[in-house]
């Protein structure tokens, strides 16, 4: 029974993926397709963020820097060289290398800094990348950004949709395996009690760096897909708003769960789309982020585990109620 319960979310998720996979073949709506593509991309980004905040207990306010590195890598390769698959792969490799190096350094800093400082420092570092992108005009065209062509394969929206869907599924299952691996389990132990983890004989810093690097690389991948979807990149990919998106999605969806960020990304992108539509009726909806800001604050205050976490807690309580008598008796005896 236990085994089944463990597998159940994966099975549900697999069915869900299958449905989404079939969607473009049965229902033709360009807008929905684009919206869903966006959701997949941000799901990857939010899951990578959750690996830090939810599984390792690290609050980073600079996640946009990895995202931006990915976006600019692909943009620059496509613009400077040929928009074909070879250079696409080069861009991916470059992204992985750059994000791995940066996240390794940032991970090293987690050793010394308390949560406050770490959040501040990552926020500032992301700010630094933003400035860099603005100033290095020969490469980035500064604030205006630049458009670029993408490999033929990705021009077709359906193809790209499927690629992003597969990407999301792969990241989901990959991270699921990762957080359930012996190493991933140690990350959760660190989140719960860092000193104790160390006193069990684990080198806490190594684990934090590992989490930082994996998370950074995945965020970079999300950045690549994002830039391809727009065929355009500008400095906004390094902005605080990108980090805030990940934060909102993860927190509202539920930290420390992988389904949470996906659900969060879905809710926020859908609501964003819907509210922007409403903006024609009333201008206040253009400021949709204000609603999310308020919801986010309420969630942090009252449901710090988000939607998925709260549901899980309720389920947990119900399960516990079913056999409390037995365990009480044993404890007494």
């Amino acid at each position, binding site marked *: 029974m236990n085994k089944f319960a463990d597998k159940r979310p994966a099975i549900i998720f697999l069915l869900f993926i299958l449905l989404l996979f079939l969607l473009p073949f049965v229902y033709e709506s360009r807008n929905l397709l684009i919206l869903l593509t966006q959701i997949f991309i941000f799901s990857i980004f939010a899951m990578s963020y959750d690996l830090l905040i939810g599984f390792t207990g690290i609050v980073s306010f600079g996640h946009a820097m990895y995202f931006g590195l990915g976006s600019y890598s692909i943009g620059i390769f496509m613009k400077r060289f040929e928009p074909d698959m070879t250079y696409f792969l080069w861009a991916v490799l470059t992204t992985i290398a750059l994000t791995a190096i940066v996240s390794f350094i940032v991970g090293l800093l987690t050793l010394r800094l308390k*949560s406050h400082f770490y959040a*501040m420092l990552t926020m*500032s570092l992301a700010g*630094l990348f933003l400035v860099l992108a603005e100033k290095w005009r020969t490469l980035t065209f500064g604030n205006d950004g630049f458009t670029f062509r993408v490999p033929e394969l990705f021009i077709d929206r359906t193809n790209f949709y499927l690629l992003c869907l597969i990407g999301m599924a792969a990241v989901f299952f990959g991270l699921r395996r990762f957080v359930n691996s012996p190493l991933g389990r140690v990350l959760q132990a660190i989140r719960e009690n860092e000193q104790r983890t160390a006193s069990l004989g684990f080198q806490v810093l190594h684990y934090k760096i590992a989490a930082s690097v994996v998370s950074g690389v995945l965020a970079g991948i999300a950045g690549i897909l994002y830039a391809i979807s727009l065929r355009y990149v500008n400095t906004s990919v390094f902005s605080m708003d990108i980090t805030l998106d990940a934060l909102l999605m993860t*927190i509202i969806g539920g930290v420390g769960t992988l389904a949470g960020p996906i659900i969060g990304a879905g809710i926020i992108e859908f609501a964003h789309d819907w509210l922007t539509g409403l903006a024609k009726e009333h201008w206040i909806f253009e400021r949709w*982020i204000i609603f999310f800001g308020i919801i986010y604050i309420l969630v942090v205050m009252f449901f710090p585990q988000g939607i998925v976490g709260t549901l899980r807690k309720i389920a947990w309580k119900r399960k516990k109620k079913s056999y409390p008598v037995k365990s009480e008796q044993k404890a007494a005896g």
Partner: protein
Amino acid sequence: MDLFMNLALNGLATGMLIFLLAAGLTLIFGLMDVLNFAHGGLFAWGAYSGLWIYSKTDSFLIGIIGAIVTGFILGIVTEKWIIKPVYGNHVQQILITLGLMMVLSEMLKVIWGPNQLTASPPDYLKGSWEIGEINLIKYRVFIIIVGLLVFAGVQFMLKKTKIGLVVQAGVMNKEMVQALGINIQRVFMFVFMIGAGMAALGGVLLGPYSGVIHAGMGMEFAILAFIVVVIGGMGNFKGSVLAAILVGLSGSFMAYYVPDLSLAVNMLLMAVVLIIRPQGLFSAKG
């Protein structure tokens, strides 16, 4: 000489504005162990509300007072509803104050529109004084004087008044302050209010100085203020003024000589300080 003076004056003025923001951050951190990521939002609110009042009343002075009052009110509300429920939980504090920052900036856009607004100093602060070769821009001198007055005022409060001593005592030992019959919650609120008021004052002063204000200015300056707080030593009030001047001056000179590196240098300085001397450059405590 003229250039040097101008850059120095410019740097000092910027430094004073950053100081007004950083001083509140550092006091709140020292006493309450809360790092307020929404502090920049209060700064931006000061700018918008102050300049709005200025435009309605045609009096810059009333605008400044209005900004400070706005800061006080927002500070009290923030402390009571946002910070108080999450005392002692660092992660929640960080997350919630960042959320507040987001809401505060968006609110500005809702009320005053998403575009940037222009601002200029009142007539009596326009232009400059010429002293020999040197050209002193009045408004910059004005900012520096206000900044110094605030510094002196807060310093006086901390050293010479009962409430100031209580604030300092609270930084050292909160429990004992309470055991001596003082309601520390009220002290927290007071400090938060003062900090927010200073941030709002900084905001309204910035408007005519830079000529434009926009909703994102809070975040921009908040990052500078964080740098200052780190360099000055978290919770160290005097350190924050020195660090603010340092950052202001370096920004001003760098912006002239190597414009592309000005922000990078400050960040780098912060990173180095965090790694080598996390307690800050000007902190005596190990």
